[in-house]
């Protein structure tokens, strides 16, 4: 049996969806199919012992997908139409009932956005303030509210739909404002972290692309799919250089680290320091490093040269500057330490 500590987080969502459907009294072949799929998931959880096999089984048999598909069909088949009667003559009463259906869905969307944020804050505990920084839902809510206000301004349903489409108000509530805020947050994070100039360049180019697509769009809103494709193209164009920068830095740090270890092994207190102090015979471990590290470092230098056409000795000459395509300047100043 799969430990419930692992299976419950996977299955609880589907159990809750099944309960919701049962509590509402829905029936039919799609409900039966939901139950059959959930029972199969439960059976696997009870009979299997390896979590990875269990997870693979659920995925390869597409059980999550099948359950969700049937759930969508159940909801659609039981959608409450309020006062709207598709079989009645289309008069003012029916028209306004249809309009109310659309506006109620938007009001529900705002409620769900706010509830979702509240639940997340409750889960985050004393880090709840982070949610206010990371999830600025007001811009989305404002755009949804504009649509609601339009709908409540005395229009008919087709007038509302026409104006919404003409002014692209439906696209405005897709959250593009929040997208840009997210891009800026990521860029500022990358600058503050300063772990790689390529991360910074990537996030900067993402923002530039977003702004360019916004300016070029007749409605001032970039197509989010095309924007994501554009970001992937940027990422792919930078990936090799970014990896080269990372691996070069790793290789140089490796050699410097080995040099440091070798130098430290020559101190009188070396046997009392980790890692030597953890060895069965600390004195032997120190002697090994003193004798072998020079040979190890020579091969590391050869690998650095073959991989990146760099000579470690040239890099570390006093006052030397080694520049990659991006500024990774390594200046070794002896007792002052090493600066990047």
């Amino acid at each position, binding site marked *: 049996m799969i430990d419930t500590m692992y299976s419950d987080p996977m299955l609880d969502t589907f159990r809750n969806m099944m309960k919701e459907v049962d509590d509402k009294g829905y029936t039919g072949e799609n409900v039966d199919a939901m139950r059959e799929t959930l029972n199969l998931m439960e059976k696997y959880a009870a009979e299997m012992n390896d979590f990875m096999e269990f997870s693979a089984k659920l*995925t390869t048999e597409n059980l999550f997908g099948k359950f969700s598909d049937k759930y969508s069909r159940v909801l659609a088949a039981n959608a409450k139409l309020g006062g709207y009667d598709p079989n009645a003559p289309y008069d003012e009463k029916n028209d306004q009932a249809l309009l109310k259906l659309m506006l109620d869905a938007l009001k529900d969307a705002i409620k769900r956005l706010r509830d979702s944020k509240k639940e997340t804050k409750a889960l985050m505990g004393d880090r709840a303030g982070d949610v206010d920084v990371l999830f600025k839902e007001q811009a989305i809510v404002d755009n949804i509210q504009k649509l609601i206000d339009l709908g409540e301004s005395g229009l008919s349903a087709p007038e509302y739909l026409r104006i919404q489409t003409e002014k692209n108000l439906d696209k405005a509530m897709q959250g593009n404002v929040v997208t840009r805020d997210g891009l800026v947050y990521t860029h500022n994070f990358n600058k503050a972290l300063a772990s790689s100039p390529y991360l910074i360049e990537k996030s900067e180019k993402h923002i530039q692309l977003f702004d360019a697509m916004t300016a070029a769009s007749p409605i001032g809103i970039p197509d989010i799919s*095309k924007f994501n494709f554009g970001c992937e193209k940027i990422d792919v164009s930078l990936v090799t250089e970014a990896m080269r920068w990372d*691996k070069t830095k790793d290789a140089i740090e490796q050699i410097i680290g080995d040099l440091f270890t070798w130098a430290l092994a020559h101190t009188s207190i070396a046997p009392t320091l980790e890692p030597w102090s953890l060895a069965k015979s600390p004195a032997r471990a120190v002697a090994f490093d003193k004798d072998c590290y020079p040979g190890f470092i020579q091969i590391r230098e050869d690998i650095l040269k073959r991989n990146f056409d760099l000579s470690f000795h040239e890099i570390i000459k006093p006052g030397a500057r080694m520049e990659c395509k991006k500024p990774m300047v390594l200046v070794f100043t002896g007792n002052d330490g090493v600066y990047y």
Partner: protein
Amino acid sequence: MRNYLEEYKAYYRVRAKRYAGDPDFPFTAEAEQNLCDAMLGCNELIEFKQRLGNLNDLCGVAYTKDTYALRLKHYREIEETIRALGPERIINKAGQFNNVFDLMTMIGEEENINSREISMDHISPFDGNWFLLERLEVYERAEIPSKWQPDVKEMASEIKKSLSESLRSTEADMQKWEPGWKLKLPLAWETRHRRKLPYPDAELKRRIGEFEKTTK
């Protein structure tokens, strides 16, 4: 007294205009125009129910074909050949569907299959252990006093065992998802993998050879 028929005609004209002439949405433009024409051909609103048929669903099918065509084009441009398989199959199958629910079921199934294909398309026992191959070279080539050679030989042997075990356990795990999965080293030369290995071709060839020799 409102003229709902004319108001709906105005709405469907605007809706068709959104995609008209958009080179990225040719199928959607055609489907939306068909829907619009059905509305414009009504003399009374009640006629639309019959004229509508499944034209709305066909708009959904058309939009699917267009959006997945954009995605396919994108993945082909950046040579993500495995990621392109899902959109390609979805486009080929979409025309068989005339209702949105069945279409969404098919898309869900194909995306699930493609997600597995993408997960299986890796060479992690090799590229994830590149650092071990370098360390192995250090231990095997370094000039060291002869008294330490047994120790270094043992350290090299541990790395070889580690590489073999990593390969074995990865293949065992992957076979739970795809029976018969084996590491395919030639994938390293495919663009989508090669661009993440920032080493000269000679080095890649060398490390592949070492990995094969060590893990055979």
